[in-house]
């Protein structure tokens, strides 16, 4: 667990890892907006 709120929850012996990650798409939208406004390539 990272910060106790997101992380790998799969059993240790498994090859495909299962993760729980709370979403926060607003962050990426804010970043897109700032990048576009300031003319930063992304």
């Amino acid at each position, binding site marked *: 667990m990272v910060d106790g709120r997101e992380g790998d929850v799969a059993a240790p012996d498994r*090859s495909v890892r*299962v*993760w*729980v990650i*709370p979403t926060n798409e607003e*962050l*990426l939208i804010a970043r897109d907006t700032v990048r576009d406004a*300031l003319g930063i390539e992304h």
Partner: protein
Amino acid sequence: VLACAGDVPTIETLAAADLLRQWLPELRVRVVNVVDLMTLQPASEHPHGLEDAAYDALFPPRVPTIFAFHGYPWLIHRLTYRRAHHPMLHVRGYKEEGTTTTPFDMVVRNDLDRFHLVLDVIARVPGLADQAGPLAAEMRGRRKRHAQYIVQHGEDMPEVRELALGHGPMKVLVLNCGSSSLKFQVIATDADAIEQDKDERLARGVIERIGSEAILTFEARAVRPRKLAEPWRDHRAALDRVLRWLVEGNATSRSSGLSEIEASAIASCTAGEALKKSCASTTRSSPRSRRTSTRAAPQPRRTCAASRPRAAAFRARPPAGRGVRHRVPRDDARDRVPLRRAVLVLRAASRPALTASTGPHRYVAYRWRRLTGRSKEETKLITIHLGNGCSACAIVGGRSIDTSMGMTPLEGLVMGTRAGDIDPGLFQYLAHKEGLSPDEFDAMLNKQAGLLGVSGLTHDMRDLLSEAAEHGDRRAHLAIDLFVGRVRKYIGAYLAEMNGAEGIVFMGGIGENSAPFARGSARTSTRSESCSTRAQERRWSTAAKATSPRRIEACACG
């Protein structure tokens, strides 16, 4: 009022306005860029001349105006001598000064530079000279520094050559609209913060159940979280409420600068995250600033119609907000495509073309990369969003190669009130047998199906789980099993399609909670031994507990 005409004076004026805002935040400054000088003349003298009322609205008679002009100042005086504000007008322009020198020095020699414009403002706004002493000294100092710098270096100072307006991280208001909810965050970020993953969340909140007695939750730094119940009719009214809270309702909004939002963006999705489109607008000016692009998925008519009230909402102005502007770009091209063809095109071409930019999926893919230290190219991920709406996405090399999201929010996984994938022949069958109209069929699949339809009880997974656990309700079991089974089926399909995955990411209210999958495993077994996947329920539950909505997170985002 700072007026300007011509490219060089306009840049100097913007720079002067920026200095004033930085040093004297209480001073109200208006910048008027004059692109047609003839508008300055009385309407009786020239067809372009502004009527007095319109002119006086721009240049109030008793307000000092500093006009930066790229020609001789007397021309502006001649054009405006009959205007009411003329006694308050001061024009800076070319006064025959200059020689072979740097571009900015030409401006300085004619007292048209930003520093001198600021000095002019200090000299002419009544009462300002007393309090703006330090700024005046700074401006005179910078003019001196400029003179020394160009002698030493033979070119203009870097701060002059590379004009950057605005200060510190940009404050962005992000709105995320659901069918009956409006979520928002105010995030302060800039290039460095993005690079270091140090964006700051200043405030966030949500208005739920818009259309009836809405529930409002607002949180900001150093302010006690507020939870209110207020009736809000539609998204427009809800947005007004949010802006009011941001601008004035929140005690610390002024001191924290929360009211100084410089850009805004909407993510409008129809009652889920099936189709998402974000567009943005900004007030911060930059020579390099360009129109923000419209990104992500094409929207079909259904979604357009559904998002119309939100577009209307977004034109609403904050009551006392300054610096907030909204623009909703129209996508005309989309409207011109005949619907039937659009459907075919969407189905055939656009789904794999969706990059992983669809909201939550894009975020968790990004977050997973950060947590695991993988690059975009190494990404091989299945992302599953289980909230009010549900969707799955297969991401390979940073691109979505497949998704459960169709043209409307209906396709794919079983959701709270949506059926997800169904037999297309069902419509014809029900139309004949039950006399169902297209609208009724649509309402049935979108509003009465899914967990609600199967269980006959509720669309809420938490209630279903307790119903199944406490009373062993057969239909509650069935709904949960169906829900979990569909998720498994998609995971299996994607694993085959992607030839295995590095990871599977769960998110959303249901996705962050292991309970349905633990329950499901008892009856239908969520273990897919073939792909060697098994989650540890205990660890998952820990995650779920820690992400309980009651927990107020620290302000740092991400």
